[in-house]
């Protein structure tokens, strides 16, 4: 396990390094001069020079990258071009909401998707299977932002059960009510994917000899399914969990826009509009970092659940 852990840590570091290079490189090749964008076209040449030095634009890209990286690992992501606040504090103020939304949606996707897939698999070839597959198909074709809008339409505008958007702050009741509809919208496509995968992997496991043995011993269908079959079927799901969380982080950027939630996504979209590059840079690094971290965790769980993986 130690060797496996070591390999995964190295893998994580390499990934983070690649991400940092990619983000820095893309935002370095941009057309136009950031100093000029800050000051406007008819700026005083002396002020222009000073801004160039302040933004580090007078030095070569590699040295700028190293300096930026050295500051980034200490949590200093630079300053916003327009809000005159450190990027890290802008991100810190919004990260909690995005994390809560993502976690909420992951939970929903799991508790809806897995039973749905198990239900379809155990009713294989019958009406229940058809219904399950139909639900999966519906979940797969609904864009999450549109699902969100339909939810607002029904539960906020028609029924007045939940707020149509906005975030009242971290009081227990208000926060849950504000995050419920966005989390449902966000989880729908992922629940569908999980349902489909659970069904497929369970159908395969149910053909295994050990399931036949368990049945032959006289164990009830329930015990065979939940104690023997589902456990092994779920191992396959762990591998996609990382990918799923990555999609959830990305999806939350869109969903935050639909529900006017002050999270990381809204920050990025706004920053793009203002071409506030340090903010975009920082937010993408943080999002990518989160995703890489979750993937790392998933790898560890996978190695724990399936010992064969450790020796590959």
């Amino acid at each position: 396990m130690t060797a496996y852990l070591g390999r995964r840590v190295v893998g994580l570091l390499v990934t983070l390094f690649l991400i940092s290079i990619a983000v820095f490189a893309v935002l370095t090749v941009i057309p136009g001069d950031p100093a000029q964008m800050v000051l406007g076209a008819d700026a005083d040449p002396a002020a222009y020079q000073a801004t160039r030095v302040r933004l580090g634009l007078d030095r070569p890209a590699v040295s700028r990258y190293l300096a930026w990286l050295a500051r980034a690992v200490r949590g200093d992501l630079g300053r916003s071009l327009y809000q005159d606040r450190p990027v890290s504090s802008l991100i810190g103020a919004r990260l909690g909401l995005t994390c809560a939304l993502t976690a909420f949606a992951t939970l929903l996707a799991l508790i809806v998707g897995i039973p749905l897939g198990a239900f379809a698999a155990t009713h294989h070839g019958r009406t229940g299977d058809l219904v399950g597959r139909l639900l999966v198909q519906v979940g797969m074709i609904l864009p999450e932002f549109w699902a969100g809008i339909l939810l607002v339409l029904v539960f906020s505008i028609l029924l007045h059960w939940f707020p149509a958007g906005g975030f009242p702050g971290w009081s227990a009741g208000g926060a849950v009510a504000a995050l419920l509809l966005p989390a449902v919208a966000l989880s729908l496509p992922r629940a569908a994917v999980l349902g489909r995968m659970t069904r497929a992997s369970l159908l395969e496991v149910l053909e295994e000899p050990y399931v036949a043995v368990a049945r032959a011993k006289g164990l009830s269908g329930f015990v065979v399914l939940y104690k023997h079959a589902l456990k092994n079927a779920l191992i396959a799901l762990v591998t996609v969990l990382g990918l799923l969380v990555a999609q959830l982080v990305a999806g939350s950027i869109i969903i935050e826009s639909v529900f006017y939630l002050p999270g990381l996504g809204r920050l990025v979209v706004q920053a793009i509009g203002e071409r506030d590059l340090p903010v975009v840079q920082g937010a993408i690094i943080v999002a990518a970092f989160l995703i890489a971290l979750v993937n790392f965790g998933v790898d560890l769980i996978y190695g724990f659940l399936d010992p064969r993986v450790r020796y590959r």
Partner: protein
Amino acid sequence: MRRRLDASLTFGGAIVFALALLVLVSLFYTPYPPTRQDIASRLAPPSSTHLLGTDHLGRDTLSRLMEGAQNSLSVAVLAVAFASVVGTALGMIAGYFGGWADEVLMRFVDFVMGFPVVLLAILVIAAFGPGLRNSLIAIAVATVPSFARLVRGTLLSLREADFVLAARAGGAGNLRVLAVHLFPNLSSYLLVQVTISLGTALLADAGLSYLGLGVQPPHASWGRMVYEARGFLALDAWPAIFPGLAIATAILGFNLLGDGLRDRFDPRGAGRVRGTRRRPRPGSSRSSRG
């Protein structure tokens, strides 16, 4: 079972055909100019003058839906066209020659796959500005890995096959083996992948244009139409419902067509584990994280 499978092929094919027709017609005719505003009749419900109603600026929803079909579908088609060519070439190099080329490529593929399209697009768009071309680039790059993996996996299982050895023994060079002997064996997989990727690309375009990162106003794309209608949801929901319905229907069409094609080409697994889109194909058993 056989009949049901053909149903998804027929139904999916019909939707895709209808979409293509809609785009074709929109090139020559839309009921109203898609960007013409008519403030007097804004947020009008569906009626005989405006079949699908109007939006908050009094623009005809059907006409905008037709223009949106052009924009959204051309992004999807171009992105997938690029990704299929580049992805196939990369996958061929990796799967056929193996070695360090394979290692490097698979690391790249894992990296891009772990990086969601939206983040990639935001990066590209932050650098080069919003617009149809840049969101297209982002979607295209994000779509390359699925083709590269598919082709690599299939080639790994085929490159030692008897017909390849026979061709080589007969004096065929690498290029000839790849182009004449191996490529035809890939084409059915590729066709399925192209169909499914079109759906995924359409979904990505919808999300990006919802965020305002795709087609710029006043032009229409399906995602942007939903966004523009969001603010007026309490007054009139129709302008939000129709474009969303269009996106969902189009993706359904591509998904069904892809499923139907797959079952047509690969009757073996058709019955048992139907609907498992990521069922490992021959040789692609390697997971994204080794």
